């Protein structure tokens, strides 16, 4: 087997794991939803606790700020709660939440970009940096430092992308969603998603070129 083929096998295995994990998660989500509709106390809190980490991380990668990410994730859960009666379960609960949070984050990014243009607003540099709080304890200090640096640079580079390019890149690259699902999540054609992904990767590679040259 060629090394290239091995990589693709690994990617396919990841897709398979993603599908299996989704199926198990979907069943437990359905149970929680049924309990919630039946008025079971604490069912909503349990559901939120189960999905919180994924959604906050998704929002964080989309907007690049923890406090804003928590706000967006919270709004996503509240919208789910308000639409419980109309939620028919055509898609899985996690897909539904991904859709809401992605769209909220895109709206937020667009507003934020406009605000920055209008008021020359810059994010405060002395904010607590979540990248510093997200250290990988298993890695060596040098690797930790490098991955932190890459994380920071990547977050900064993501700011240069359009809201949709950023969302497509994050959903495919980091969240591992298939392109078809991303298209459904963002309400776009699959071809448009491919174009956004291609442009996002091209822009990020250009922006992070020096970092990659240093490593190689």
């Amino acid at each position, binding site marked *: 087997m*060629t090394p*290239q*083929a091995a*990589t*693709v096998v690994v*990617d*396919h295995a*990841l*897709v398979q794991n993603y599908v299996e994990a989704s199926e198990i998660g979907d069943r437990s989500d359905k149970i929680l939803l049924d309990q919630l509709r039946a008025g079971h106390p*604490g069912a*909503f*809190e*349990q559901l*939120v*606790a189960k999905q*919180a*980490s994924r959604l*906050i*991380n998704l929002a*964080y*990668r989309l907007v690049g700020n*923890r406090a804003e*990410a*928590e706000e967006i*994730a*919270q709004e996503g*859960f*509240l919208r789910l*709660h*308000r639409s419980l009666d109309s939620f028919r379960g055509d898609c899985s609960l996690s897909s539904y939440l991904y859709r809401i949070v992605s769209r909220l984050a895109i709206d937020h990014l667009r507003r934020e970009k406009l605000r920055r243009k209008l008021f020359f607003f810059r994010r405060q540099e002395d904010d607590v940096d*979540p*990248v510093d*709080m*997200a250290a990988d304890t298993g890695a060596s200090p040098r690797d930790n430092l490098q*991955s*932190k640096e*890459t*994380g*920071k640079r*990547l*977050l900064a580079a*993501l700011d240069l992308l359009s809201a949709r390019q950023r969302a497509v890149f*994050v959903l*495919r*690259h*980091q969240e591992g969603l*298939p*392109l078809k699902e991303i298209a459904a999540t963002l309400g776009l054609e699959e071809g448009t998603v*491919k174009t956004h*992904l*291609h442009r996002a*990767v*091209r822009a*990020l*590679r250009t922006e*992070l070129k020096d*970092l*990659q040259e240093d*490593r*190689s």
Partner: protein
Amino acid sequence: MKDLGTRHSCKEDLLLYYYGELADLQRRELEKHLAGCERCDNEWQQLRRSLKEMALPTIELDPVETKRFAARVAERAQRPRRSKLWLWGGALTACSILALSLMARPPELAPGQGTSLVADAAMVQDLDLLQNMELLEELDLLQGLEGQG
């Protein structure tokens, strides 16, 4: 569709290949091409390396933080939604004030009265000039009297 077995693979195909998004036939053709084309293989290795390094940071939520967040959201969900009645109330109040101020306005001026008022006002501005004219006339009279005297 491009024949990937014979042509140099474009970057978009390599990207889709990385993410496992190429159809089986395309994937096999691309693999065949990469095995025999050094240029494309180099391109592929570079792309693979750079994408592998693009790892976004993860926020680790400990159980306490997760519980606190879930409790906050659940509490917010129980809160009654803020009614928009105050907005309608505000609009109604503003309309009432506007209507009252219109009703309290002095009665409408008769047609044509407005223009005569403007002419009067213009005359008032020229009042000083009129007074000066009277003075000039009196000055002529005084000069005549002086000549006679």
